[in-house]
């Protein structure tokens, strides 16, 4: 192996390694779903035209709603009212093809010429299904009605005639001024006018909207803040779904002000930490952004179902063939007996009922008779298309979802979140995954940042290396006799702590002072004081949108720079016990184009300084070129070593602003921030005035901790033959280091690194890499398709976003795919959200393999929606990923039980269930068909119509559903012990064409036995239709249930109950049917059951029909066992061994949390 890794090192030379990242193009960050996002972008580019705008007259709802009635604030999540229920519910239900098929058959059967079954009987199954679904819908809608009522009847305080009055939520109108107290929910989307805070800040919690628990700041405009009377006009965009954007302007006292997303508070939020806020309603009820965003789970169709639909097409061909055979035979029969039909006692075409006239009775001519025969045979053989299967499958999936949700092993104690099944129809896809695309931050890692290292003026202060015991310093200050302490403790470097305490005495101390000042101020953190049980001690909790910022603020606090208070105008810091107030003159928030943020601070001595922090690539571009290059180089070296340790780095810069510079910036800033359109771009341009010619203060490094169990999980997935690709926005070095720590990369692997800046160099790198990977794989022997278990030198591909820009959507895609499919690991770093989706699409479009994307943040949404299965991590970063996902869970490691256990089971269960249901219905249809050949092709059914109908309702439906929900081929421990067993799903072992054909052959044999044995036995005997029909009914039902019983792997008491119960239920049902004197078959069962021949035949049928199956099954299982079979045996025998010795063996991978 060493040969190869050394080979890889030498090979690295041929690969272009681009360290400079100037080529990285700016890409917009995307939030939320695609639709909302594109809307937001285009709106910001465009002027708010009058026809696109909504005019809201503040405190004048009458005028506001005069020209156009805006929606009221009452919401309706319920779908139906009493009146509309029946038509709407029916309309929705008939969206399913299955029901339409049902309906067509039922309608056909209503035509008198075609009435094969009694009219009542033919409608029964459809009405039954419709009724059950309707009852379920009524129940769900009733619950929605109830919650709507509660919501609509809440009270809000609304300004009426200069006084605030209580009003129900549903009566709130656009234009009304609303007062909200602390901890109250917001009734509709409001633009803030005034708050209790002197600077006009209000804090809101948006947990119900996006799941982020930290506080967000919203501002009231200074022009309206604190005023008594409210007036003016707001011109805002039409209601839309973008919860992160708001474009409007407001005219107050002749002044035109612009409003943005920081001025609007959305319905669903709660006011926190602010005693009072007053705002004007702009969007109400169903037009609020929260309501516009409440869309259902995405609908996907599972791979298994797609394949199944293909086989259903075959079955329909077969159905058509049966009907054609019947009608052709009937045609020939009619032709041959043409002359006899008139008087044939059992046909009697002639009708003499009219005096003197001789007419044809119920005879419509040869052609039409054939057509009718064809249609009638469609009706009789309709169950060939297993419509009930669709309904059973849904029930089974609900059962599977129940088990997944209830699984203790997928419950996250930390976030107290259960597994969530958001999409109900792709459970079985979990058993066939071949590619896993994972986000890094928050998915592989905890997204809990810890400040680790600082490089200040080229000096590396490392808090971990020197004192591993990690001295955690608790820094606290006293304010008004109360002790205030940061909530989180941070490990500190004692040397740095000492230096920071030294204050401004020397240059070093001054630099350190500036560094921490930057950390404490250059952020959007809101400090919150939290009470503790000790009345004298208060905890200070830093709330902020970015976990990096929180970590930095806590770190600054630990080093004595404690952020105490922040308003929109000033910041109060406690610096080593000394309170200092800084004016915040301006703030450029972080955006992903600039990749930095800056704050402009006015010092008490009225000097002005700007602090900037940002990603190294973006910062190194804006440093002063005349600056000390040695220092820059030293810092860069530190950055490199930090990121290779897997740390996240930020560079801090600063600059003094002189008065003229400040003025220039200030006027530009004012102009930009009141701009009506293109504000973001303008602000970006303004920021460049101050974010230039910076001097480097230093760099910080934050550790992003791996989540629990990640390396083990990745190992398990790899053994299971699943390729794990990591797509991250992080730097290459960080990504690789996380790759190593998560065992994704191992030292045995050869790394191929591609980062090129042009298309041509990309092409060349790809070609070289392809050649190299081929060489590597061939030199190390057989390239094993099983992937993980291969002993060939695994190849890891590391590619960055810049290269991907050139490769995706171009002809190079194919080459990349070729290369990537040879690699056991692919790491994509510095990728934009849309590129993540592009990579998923690359694999999805080129293979039939299943893809799964897992992520936690808004940037993973596109990838999650693109993949066959999307999994959201319900963790730190918010809920967008969860909202877009099909499944959501608390931790990455739950992927292992989800795929290897539940996915495996779901797939095996449904695969078998589909085959069984094909068999179950086809065997009945074939028995009916054989009989038709002996009734002059006239579609008489010996099995009476009630039994035909009840067949798929009572006789044989429950066992397959229960077995589909409960049966397990292997136990949990075995599946975890041998992840390779997962390959069964990837290789489509539970459901494939071969199995389908074999099942159908078996079906044919069984139907032949069921039909022909009684036929020969009863030929030229006195047997009547009903008696032989009962025999066939029992033959089919018992056989079908025994067939299932033969394949059940685990017998629970419930399995016994349903299987044997179904047979008993059949006997009871047939007895009841045969006890109705009005039916022609009256008492037939009791007669025929009294004869020995009946029981002999029944016994003979069952054994003869199942013998071939038993033989094949045994030979296959014993002499050609697959892995599942061997493990089943091992499980059984091993279990006995364990019981004998009284010991329980330990498993190598035990990442189950103890119960």
């Amino acid at each position, binding site marked *: 192996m060493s040969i190869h890794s050394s080979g890889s090192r030498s090979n690295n030379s041929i690969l272009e390694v681009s360290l400079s990242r100037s080529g990285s193009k700016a890409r917009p960050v995307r939030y939320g779903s695609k639709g909302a996002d594109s809307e937001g972008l285009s709106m910001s580019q465009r002027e708010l035209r009058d026809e696109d705008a909504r005019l809201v007259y503040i405190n004048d709802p009458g005028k506001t709603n005069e020209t156009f009635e805006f929606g009221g604030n009452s919401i309706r999540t319920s779908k139906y009212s009493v009146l509309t229920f029946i038509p709407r519910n029916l309309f929705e239900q008939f969206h399913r093809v299955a029901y339409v098929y049902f309906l067509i058959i039922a309608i056909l059967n209503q035509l008198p010429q075609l009435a094969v079954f009694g009219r009542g009987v033919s409608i029964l199954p459809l009405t039954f299904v419709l009724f059950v679904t309707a009852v379920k819908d009524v129940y769900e809608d009733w619950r929605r009605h109830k919650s709507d009522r509660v919501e609509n009847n809440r009270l809000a305080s609304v300004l009426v005639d200069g006084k605030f009055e209580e009003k129900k939520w549903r009566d709130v109108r656009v234009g009304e001024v609303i007062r909200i107290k602390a901890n109250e929910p917001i009734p509709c989307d409001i633009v803030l006018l005034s708050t209790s805070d002197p600077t006009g800040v209000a804090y809101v919690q948006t947990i119900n909207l996006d799941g982020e628990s930290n506080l967000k700041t919203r501002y009231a405009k200074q022009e309206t803040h604190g005023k008594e009377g409210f007036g003016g006009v707001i011109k805002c965009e039409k209601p839309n779904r973008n919860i992160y954007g708001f474009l409007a302007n407001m005219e107050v006292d002749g002044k035109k002000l612009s409003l943005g997303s920081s001025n609007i508070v959305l319905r669903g939020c709660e006011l926190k930490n602010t005693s009072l806020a007053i705002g004007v309603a702009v969007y109400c009820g169903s037009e609020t952004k929260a309501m516009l965003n409440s869309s259902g789970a995405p609908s996907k169709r599972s791979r298994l179902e797609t394949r199944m639909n293909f086989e259903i097409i075959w079955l329909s061909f077969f159905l058509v063939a049966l009907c054609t055979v019947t009608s052709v035979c009937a045609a020939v029969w009619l032709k041959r007996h043409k002359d006899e039909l008139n008087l044939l006692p059992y*046909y009697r075409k002639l009708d003499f009922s009219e005096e003197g006239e001789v007419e044809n009775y119920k005879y419509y001519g040869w052609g039409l008779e054939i057509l009718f025969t064809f249609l009638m045979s469609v009706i009789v053989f309709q169950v060939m298309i297993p419509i009930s299967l669709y309904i059973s499958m849904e029930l089974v999936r609900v059962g599977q979802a129940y088990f997944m949700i209830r699984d203790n092993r997928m419950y996250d104690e930390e976030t107290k979140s259960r597994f969530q099944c958001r999409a109900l129809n792709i459970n079985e896809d979990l058993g066939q995954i071949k590619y896993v695309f994972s986000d890094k931050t928050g998915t592989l890692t905890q997204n809990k940042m810890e400040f680790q290292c600082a490089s200040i003026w080229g000096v590396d202060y490392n808090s971990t290396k020197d004192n591993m015991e990690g001295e955690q310093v608790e820094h606290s200050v006293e304010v008004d006799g109360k002790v205030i302490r940061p909530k989180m403790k941070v490990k500190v470097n004692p040397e740095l702590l000492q230096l920071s305490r030294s204050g401004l005495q020397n240059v070093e101390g001054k630099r350190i002072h500036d560094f921490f000042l930057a950390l404490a101020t250059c952020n959007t953190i809101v400090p919150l004081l939290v009470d503790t049980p000790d009345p004298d001690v208060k905890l200070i909790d830093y709330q902020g949108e970015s976990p990096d910022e929180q970590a930095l603020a806590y770190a600054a606090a630990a080093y004595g720079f404690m952020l105490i208070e922040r308003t929109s105008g000033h910041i109060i810091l406690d610096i080593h016990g000394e309170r200092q107030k800084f004016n915040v003159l301006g703030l450029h928030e972080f955006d992903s184009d600039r990749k930095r943020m800056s704050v402009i601070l006015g010092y008490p001595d009225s000097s002005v300084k700007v602090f900037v922090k940002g990603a190294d690539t973006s910062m190194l571009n804006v440093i002063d070129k005349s600056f000390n290059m040695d220092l820059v180089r030293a810092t860069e070296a530190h950055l490199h070593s930090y990121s290779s340790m897997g740390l996240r780095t930020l560079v801090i810069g600063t600059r003094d602003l002189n008065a003229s510079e400040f003025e220039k910036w200030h006027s530009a800033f004012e102009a930009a921030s009141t701009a009506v359109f293109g504000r973001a771009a303008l602000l970006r341009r303004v920021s460049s005035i101050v974010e230039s010619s910076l001097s480097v203060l230093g760099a910080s490094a934050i550790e992003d901790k791996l989540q629990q169990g990640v390396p083990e999980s990745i190992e398990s997935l790899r053994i299971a033959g699943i390729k794990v690709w990591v797509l991250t926005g992080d730097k290459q070095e960080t990504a690789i280091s996380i790759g190593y720590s998560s065992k994704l990369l191992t030292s045995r692997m050869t790394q191929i690194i591609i980062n090129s800046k042009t298309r041509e160099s990309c092409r060349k790198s790809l070609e070289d890499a392809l050649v190299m990977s081929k060489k590597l794989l061939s030199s190390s022997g057989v390239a094993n398709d099983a992937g993980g278990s291969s002993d060939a030198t695994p190849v890891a591909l590391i590619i960055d976003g810049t290269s991907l820009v050139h490769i995706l959507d171009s002809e190079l895609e194919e080459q990349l795919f070729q290369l990537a499919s040879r690699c056991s690991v692919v790491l994509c770093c510095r990728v934009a959200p849309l590129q993540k989706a592009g990579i998923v699409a690359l694999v999805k479009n080129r293979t039939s393999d299943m893809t799964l994307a897992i992520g936690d943040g808004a940037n993973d949404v596109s990838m999650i929606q693109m993949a066959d299965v999307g999994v959201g991590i319900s963790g730190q970063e918010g809920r967008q990923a969860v909202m877009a996902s099909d499944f959501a869970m608390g931790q990455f490691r739950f992927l292992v039980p989800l795929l290897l256990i539940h996915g495996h089971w779901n797939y095996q269960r449904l695969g078998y269930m589909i085959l069984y249901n094909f068999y179950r219905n086809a065997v009945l249809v074939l028995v009916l068909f054989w009989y038709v050949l002996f009734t002059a092709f006239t579609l008489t059914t010996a099995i009476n119509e009630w039994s035909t109908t009840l067949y798929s309702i009572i006789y044989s439906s429950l066992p397959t559903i229960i077995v589909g929900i409960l049966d397990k081929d292997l136990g949990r421990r075995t599946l975890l012990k041998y992840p390779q067993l997962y390959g069964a799903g990837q290789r489509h072992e539970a459901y494939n064409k071969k199995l389908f054909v074999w099942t159908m052959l078996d079906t044919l044999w069984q139907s032949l036995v069921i039909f022909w044995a009684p036929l020969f036995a009863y030929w*030229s005997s006195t047997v009547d239709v009903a008696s032989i029909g009962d025999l066939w009914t029992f033959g089919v039902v018992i056989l079908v249930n025994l067939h299932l019983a033969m394949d059940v792997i685990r017998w629970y008491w419930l399995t016994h109950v349903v299987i044997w119960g179904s047979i008993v239920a059949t006997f009871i049902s047939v007895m009841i049917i045969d006890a109705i004197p009005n039916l022609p078959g009256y008492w037939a069962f009791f007669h025929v059951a009294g004869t020995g021949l009946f029981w002999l035949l029944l016994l003979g049928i069952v054994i003869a029909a199942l013998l071939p199956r038993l033989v094949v099954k045994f030979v296959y299982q014993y002499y050609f066992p697959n892995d599942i079979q061997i493990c089943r045996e091992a499980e059984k025998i091993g279990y006995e061994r364990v019981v004998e010795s009284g010991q329980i063996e330990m498993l190598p991978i035990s990442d189950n949390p103890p119960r």
Partner: protein
Amino acid sequence: MDIKDEESAPSSKKASKKPIYTQFSQQDLPAWKPILTPGWVIATFSVVGILYIPIGLLTLFASESVEEAIFRYDDRCLPPSYAHNANSYIQSDDTNKTCTIKWTVEHEMEAPIYIYYQLDNYYQNHRRYVKSRNDMQLRNKAAEGDLGNCFPEDKTTDTNQPIVPCGLIAWSLFNDTYRFLTSNKDLTVNKKNIAWGSDQRSKFGSNVYPKNFQSRDLIGGAKLNESIPLSQQEDLIVWMRSAALPTFRKLYGKIETDLEMNDEIEIVIENNYNTYLFGGRKRLVFSTTTLIGGKNPFVGTAYLIVGGLSLFCAITFILLYVIKPRPLGDPSYLSWNRNPGGIK
């Protein structure tokens, strides 16, 4: 419903939502896990073989012990002059329909001897035919006018009176009759209790009398005595149990004396029923019965074959097991252990 709960529950709720542990929800219910071990399979096949061969032999023996005599008479009772004009012969009122067959009993037959008529190529299960009856009318005097499904044999042509029993099945009632003479003495045929008791009790009313039956131009078969209630019209009841297959027998009556070997029996047939129209054959059958019914070698043979095959399988599997056994549940047979690809 649980799924919905999950989605709507606010995530701010800090109470532990850890699923409660139950064996059911964690899919840890105790279960019986049978596997197809060679022992089980061999035992199953052996048991099937050991059970089926005797059953087959017994059944075959029973079937062989049934004495059966069959006479086809549709051709024999057709005068040669009508050979090419059978239809007009049978439709004409003037022709002599009586015909006689002599039968020398070949084997002794023990009472009761069942007499059946057998029809060939007669589709009593034809869809037009099986539906052409009204079960309400047959049961209930009050439902006499209930004529659904009976068209075209529902009402009299001129007066529109309901026909009881209506429909094609009743209309086409079989009307050949048989008499049996030994030494010029009538052999009594018991025609009581040839129908199912259940039909007589509950399906055919004891207060429903035939009305306007066969009163129309086209006469399909036998006429009924209008003074006897339907529940006593056993020939009708037997006929109306539509046969399942196109070749069928219907019970005509029983002879309750033994027939000795070489008894000379004269069978007098009234050949009235028209099967010449569609080439249907008519037969008269005498048969004794056993536990499994009439003569039927099929079931016994089938049992023997299945039993034999089972024994064969059992023996084959025993041999295979002895020659090439596979240890159950041996991990070394797992695919990834069997061919560890690429080790140099």
